[in-house]
């Protein structure tokens, strides 16, 4: 009857979202009067999960699962859910979890809610709050199936410590034929990704050309941030498509989003509104971004950004 959570890892180490979904699962388990079981795939050290309220770990270790495969992972999680007779299953909103969850939903006949923000407001009927219309509205969403599958929005619940002692069990599920074979993975290993970043530094057409991104990268560097851009910037080929954020690009749910030379069109704002704190730097005091931002500087990016880098470096040196 426990709550089952899929805790993602990368090269053996848990992703931060794993702890966030575990924290969330613990809170739901308390509501339901039950405990949390985590399923991990090739995670090296699972003891960290004890900090976030996990009582039992099903540990899958299998070299053939090194590269992610949605169908196989969905099948493994399904087998764990069935073994534990879990009624609530929790996953993150990472690209991979969003890929496997619809398959898992069909496997389990479980109604699936995506972009969930809070713990259920009610458990019978089971109702959760989620975002809809790309952050322009919230939806109270009812799941009527016996098993419920929840995809939690990044950075919505946060990390909640809840010390437990967890039992750990090796789990060897059967592995189905996948039909999909990874040929190559192309990933910059030294860069902070938009998905993982606490801070995102983003720039738009106000930067005039790709040759001016040096200061954006430097600012990101000082802050340990990921870089992003507006849609026209990637359409023009100034920056790679993977950096395009907004309604038709990547969603951003960071703690801090700094927008430089971005006007703040509705499609841009929709995709970044889930970020907690927004800063805008723009020459035009009338730019719509000022209505969406928490802090703003009306000024020329070519003056403000280098100055900000200098001051931030001094600030960091003091810390």
């Amino acid at each position, binding site marked *: 009857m426990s709550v089952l959570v899929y805790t993602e890892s990368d090269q053996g180490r848990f992703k931060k979202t794993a702890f966030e979904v575990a924290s969330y699962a613990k809170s739901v388990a308390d509501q339901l009067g039950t405990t949390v079981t985590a399923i991990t795939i090739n995670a090296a050290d699972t003891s960290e999960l004890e900090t976030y309220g996990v009582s039992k770990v099903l540990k899958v270790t299998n070299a053939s699962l090194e590269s992610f495969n949605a169908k196989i992972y969905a099948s493994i999680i399904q087998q764990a859910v069935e073994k534990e007779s879990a009624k609530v299953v929790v996953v993150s909103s990472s690209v*991979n979890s969003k890929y496997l969850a619809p398959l898992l*939903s069909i496997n389990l006949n479980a109604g699936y809610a995506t972009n969930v923000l809070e713990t259920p407001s009610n458990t019978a009927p089971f109702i959760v709050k989620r975002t809809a219309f790309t952050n322009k509205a919230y939806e109270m*969403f009812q799941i009527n199936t016996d098993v419920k599958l929840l995809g939690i929005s990044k950075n919505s619940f946060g990390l909640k410590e809840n010390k437990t002692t967890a039992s750990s069990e090796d789990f060897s599920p059967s592995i189905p034929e996948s039909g999909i074979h*990874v040929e190559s993975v192309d990933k910059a290993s030294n860069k902070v990704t938009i998905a993982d970043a606490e801070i995102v530094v983003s720039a738009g057409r106000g930067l005039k050309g790709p040759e001016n991104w040096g200061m954006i990268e430097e600012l990101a560097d000082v802050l340990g941030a990921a870089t992003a851009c507006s849609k026209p910037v990637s359409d023009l080929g100034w920056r790679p*498509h993977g950096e395009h954020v907004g*309604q038709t690009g990547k969603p951003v749910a960071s703690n*801090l989003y700094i927008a430089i030379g971005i006007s703040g069109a509705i499609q841009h704002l929709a995709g970044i509104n889930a970020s907690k704190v927004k800063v805008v730097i723009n020459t035009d005091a009338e730019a719509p971004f000022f209505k969406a931002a928490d*802090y703003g500087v009306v000024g020329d990016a070519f003056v403000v950004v280098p100055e900000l880098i200098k001051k931030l470096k001094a600030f960091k040196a003091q810390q």
Partner: protein
Amino acid sequence: MKILVCISHVPDTTSKINFTDDNTKFDTNGVQYVINPNDEFGLTRAMWFKEKQGAEVTVVNVGGAETEPTLRKALAIGADAAIRVNVAAADGFSVAKQLAKVVKDGGYDLIIAGRESIDYNGGMVPGMIAGLTNSNFVSNCIGLEVDGNSAKVVREIDGGKETVNTSLPLIIGGQKGLVEESDLRIPNMRGIMMARQKPLTVLEPIDIAPETASVKFEKPAPKGAVKLVSPDNLDELISLLHNEAKVI
């Protein structure tokens, strides 16, 4: 190759989002509808397969008669035929069930859907069709090539991309990158005239109980005013971000 492109009919990206009936229904008043942007990228890629590899392209929507102008637009862009399953979309699962039936009955080789609809942002229909039909499935697709029965698909991952090999029948969840923005087509007069002659078949739905339901909507609370900091006083910005917002 027979291609099915799933088209979600959504409010234009600039639409004001409001609700009626005690905040239980989306207010369609004054809202312009468009082909879901992620589906427009998929449809455009399907046009490439039609022109370069002789594919036959059908578009499909699950929805009421009000979605037909959106399907006609897809025909005007170049799809050969359209199907509308005549039932209001109740939830992602029921839409996927209707579409899975269309997929099975039509014997399609390639099913192109979008990563997510920009209205309810479910992000579940393509994966659910794949689960229901037991087909190969790649989400967040930013590149797709087909050669006979094999496909090479590029998928966006956190911080990069992954190239996979798979085979038809295949379902993808597409997004920008599948084609470039500049490849998108605006229907021309000839396309619009031809679209009128093309078949738009209305299918009666199968009986399905939805798994989920929308209870109520809420709009985010209005935001407080922006705090402006002078460009000559960036120390203040750093101090605000550190002491007040606590984000650096």
